[in-house]
């Protein structure tokens, strides 16, 4: 260990996105009482956007000088940059969708935007963390902000249910993870991932594989909860249904992507020596998630709940890539998460728009005739849904393609076949929404449908363009993912 613990300038430079976001978040809290009630919505909304765009710029610039920071606690590599950019973009989309929503619900914007910014900060830390304590801190920053966001409309019963459930179960899962971290520290004497890997790989000092495996399993409980993988998915439908729609959009993508980032980093670096121990675990979780998510979604009437179940299934697809336990698998998971983030946020943005005040219009039938009343909105939602199904020329298709290609590379033939058949099952419930939108005459829900607000419109178009670009020209993103996947060890 070097004697000098003072960080150098370049380390702060690598940490710049988090610094910008933290300062902006704190500034917004200060700004809250200084603005009048009418101006507050707009001011905080715009400050959040500026901060996130600043962080986006910083995340990209930080990659010009990649490397570790703060005694190897952070590792700013391609992998970290990929996920930082992804979670920040999700943050931007969430802010864009929220503006009209908060006004409509007459909710105070006070802490809302600050919480989103703090949550993104936590996710950025997770993306770059190379050390178990940092992982835990990032996870907590992100989670605690999300708990509050889930119950943001505090007079709403479902919001309260959502927040309480999320908080209680979330803390429980976090405790498991912390216990696993403690085991690892006890076994190896280190919390640094590279160091842990080195110790496990050195036969003379390696702890018993069974004990390391138990620690890995304990941590898996925590991770599986955060990514809503079966059998730890029970909370997801209630929480996503109860939370405000833009928050559900945010929670089901950003924190999930970040959780997958640390998940991949831990299992693909520290736990690579015991791959054979955890692969069967992933295999089961992947298959179970796909089956539970897809089959439960078949019978849903509420769109938010349907998207919640579908997000469980999509976590299953990403887990298939993790099960492959290869660099190609990591790259596939990264690509899939990017594609998934855009299609899911896009779909939720339409839900936000359709829901109306108090989120009254959330049944699939409330979409009836959207294709005739607002053809552009319906067409965009169709793109997201086709992408969620995995129809070619959308990001979702290439995501599935790369995931299952990685799985076949790793000789997971049964998992691939079952996964692909699952994706055909999934087509049914996504098609139901398209059917209602286009093939039914407009119902009463269409009569008071307002025009799409500029913020939602922007979020929709950004997500749609991203979904199509990932589907037609995936090379750039995939090459970057492929390059970064090999770097993280």
């Amino acid at each position: 260990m070097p004697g000098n613990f003072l960080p150098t300038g370049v380390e702060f430079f690598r940490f710049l996105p988090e610094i910008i976001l933290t300062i902006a978040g704190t500034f917004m809290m200060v700004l809250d009482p200084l603005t009048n009630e009418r101006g507050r919505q707009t001011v905080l909304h715009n400050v959040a956007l500026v901060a996130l765009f600043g962080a986006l710029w910083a995340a990209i610039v930080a990659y010009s000088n990649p490397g570790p920071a703060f005694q190897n606690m952070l590792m700013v590599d391609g992998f970290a940059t990929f996920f930082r950019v992804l979670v920040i973009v999700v943050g931007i989309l969430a802010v864009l969708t929220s503006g009209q929503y908060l006004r409509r619900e007459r909710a105070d914007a006070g802490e809302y935007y600050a919480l989103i910014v703090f949550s993104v900060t936590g996710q950025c830390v997770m993306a770059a963390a190379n050390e178990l304590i940092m992982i835990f801190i990032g996870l907590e920053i992100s989670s605690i902000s999300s708990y509050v966001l889930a119950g943001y409309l505090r007079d709403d019963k479902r919001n309260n249910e959502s927040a309480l459930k999320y908080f209680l179960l979330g803390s429980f899962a976090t405790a498991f993870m912390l216990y696993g971290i403690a085991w690892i520290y006890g076994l190896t004497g280190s919390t640094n991932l590279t160091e842990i890997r080195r110790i496990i790989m050195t036969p003379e000092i390696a702890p018993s594989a069974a004990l390391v495996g138990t620690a890995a399993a304990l941590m898996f409980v925590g991770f599986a909860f955060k990514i809503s993988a079966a059998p730890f998915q029970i909370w997801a439908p209630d929480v996503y249904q109860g939370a405000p729609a833009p928050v559900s959009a945010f929670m089901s993508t950003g924190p999930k992507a970040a959780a997958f980032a640390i998940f991949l980093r831990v299992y693909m670096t520290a736990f690579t020596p015991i791959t054979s121990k955890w692969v069967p675990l992933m295999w089961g979780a992947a298959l179970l998630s796909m089956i539970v998510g897809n089959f439960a979604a078949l019978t849903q009437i509420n769109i938010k709940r349907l998207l919640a179940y579908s997000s469980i299934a999509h976590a299953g697809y990403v887990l298939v890539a993790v099960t492959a336990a290869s660099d190609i698998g990591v790259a596939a998971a990264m690509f899939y998460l990017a594609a998934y983030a855009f299609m899911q946020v896009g779909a939720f943005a339409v839900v936000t728009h359709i829901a109306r005040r108090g989120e009254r219009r959330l049944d699939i039938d409330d979409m009836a005739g959207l294709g005739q009343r607002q053809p552009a909105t319906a067409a965009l939602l169709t793109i997201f849904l086709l992408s969620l199904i995995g129809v070619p020329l959308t990001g979702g298709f290439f995501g599935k393609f790369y995931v299952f290609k990685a799985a076949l590379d790793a000789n997971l033939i049964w998992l691939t076949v079952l996964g692909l058949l699952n994706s055909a099952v999934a087509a049914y419930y996504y098609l139901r929404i398209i059917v209602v939108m286009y093939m039914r005459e407009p119902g009463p829900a269409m009569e008071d449908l307002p025009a799409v607000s500029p913020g939602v419109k922007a979020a929709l178009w950004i997500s749609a363009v991203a979904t199509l670009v990932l589907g037609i020209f995936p090379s750039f993103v995939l090459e970057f993912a492929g390059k970064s996947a090999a770097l993280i060890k």
Partner: protein
Amino acid sequence: MSLLNIILALPFIGFLLVLFIPRTATGTIRRLALIVSLVTLIGSLGLIGAVLKSPSTFAFERDYVWITYPPIHYHVGLDGLSIWLVLLSTLLSPIAVLISWRSIEHRVKEFFAFLLLLEFGLIGVFVALDLFLFYVFWEVSLVPMYFLVGIWGHERRIYAAVKFFLYTMAASVLMLAGIIYLYNKTGTFDYPILLDMLSSGRLLLGHTEALLLFLAFFLAFAVKVPLFPLHTWLPDAHVEAPTAGSVMLASVMLKMGTYGLVRFCVPMFPNSARENAPWIIVLAIIGIIYGALVAMVQPNMKKLVAYSSVSHLGFVVLGTFSFTQQGMDGAVYQMLNHGISTGALFMLVGYMYERRHSLEIRDYGGVATPAPWLAAVFLVTTLASVGLPSLNNFVGEFLVLQGAAIANYNYVVFAAVGVILSAVYMLWLYQRTFLGREPSGFHMPDLNGREWAAILPLIALMIWMGIAPQTFLPVVSASNARTLSLSNINREFNVKTTPVTVPLVEAANAR
């Protein structure tokens, strides 16, 4: 920019243009769709010359990198197998536009946009030489058809559309798994390269491996054909679809399945194809007879034509899996015949529906008196569909039966029953709708100019293809001969084959 690329791009450009026209300008949208599809048709005629010169190699071959890793290429080309299917797509698209001119009043913009997108997908399927690109077009063509059935169809349209989508989707994901598996083994998606690897022995597939891959591809194609017992989506989709949808579905879309069998299943996995030929042929023959019997008792005209498709396509599968030159030629020829005669039948039924708003046979009778021209055209189409010599279906069915006879005489005995049954149900349909007494209050105007323009090319082709099959067949034969010889070369690497195939191969080589 090769002509083929332009032909492929035109419908897509048309699709984008339609999207930018305001939805109230329905006249402009219709005219634009017609012009685009006509220009595509005229342009596609220019493709014939080059293919005639060397039908067994790929003309207009273009290969551009689309995605660098994994190496997915935009690789297209035309040979004797695909040229006529491409022309079938480009011919039927303007016809589909014409027959929808008045019958589609509701959401006109989306309708013609989807029609052009469908043409793009269909042409793409037939020209793609990269397995991945093929899969992309295969799925892309699914989406517009789903909307065509689901939005503009009849009462049970939603059920039919969803069933159609799910059937095709579920079967084709396994093909995707097969494609990825082949890629992981070879590092390429390129069809000609894969064929070359297989024929030179650089790619050796184990017995089980080849069998599973064959089944993965076969299932996807069999659903699309559709082969008995996977046909249940077809009557629903056909009956519920609007006329243009039924026409495109029957004429072109079903050919995606049979094309896939001839293009991919047989040459890539010849041993598995030969080993499994007996039960596949049995299913095909069951389809021929079952389809005909069910067609016979249908009270609904569209449903009758739909079941007749199941029967007709059984012949295509029978010919393909007879592994003889005649059988395969007949199969490919029968694909075109079915496209033309069944397409025409669906159009004529559509014309009748526009006049009386009913598809039930009992609501008709004596149509020949008020509408003699409609009756005449319907009769010609009926006779073509029945397989009257000098009309197109006869040539195809004859060749298929000949090929099947070389393979195993028993096949012919049963398959020929289908030919007889087709005469029963078709002539009976004609008798019940066009002859006899008119129901009271019957208003049945004869064909108008637009309807004539749509049907006439098909009638002309039925006669042309019946009298002068030599215009079309040599190209098909040359390309099929290549397919057959490819499947022979492969056999040398795998000693175990079914004994029945040996004389077939010699017969094919002798030609």
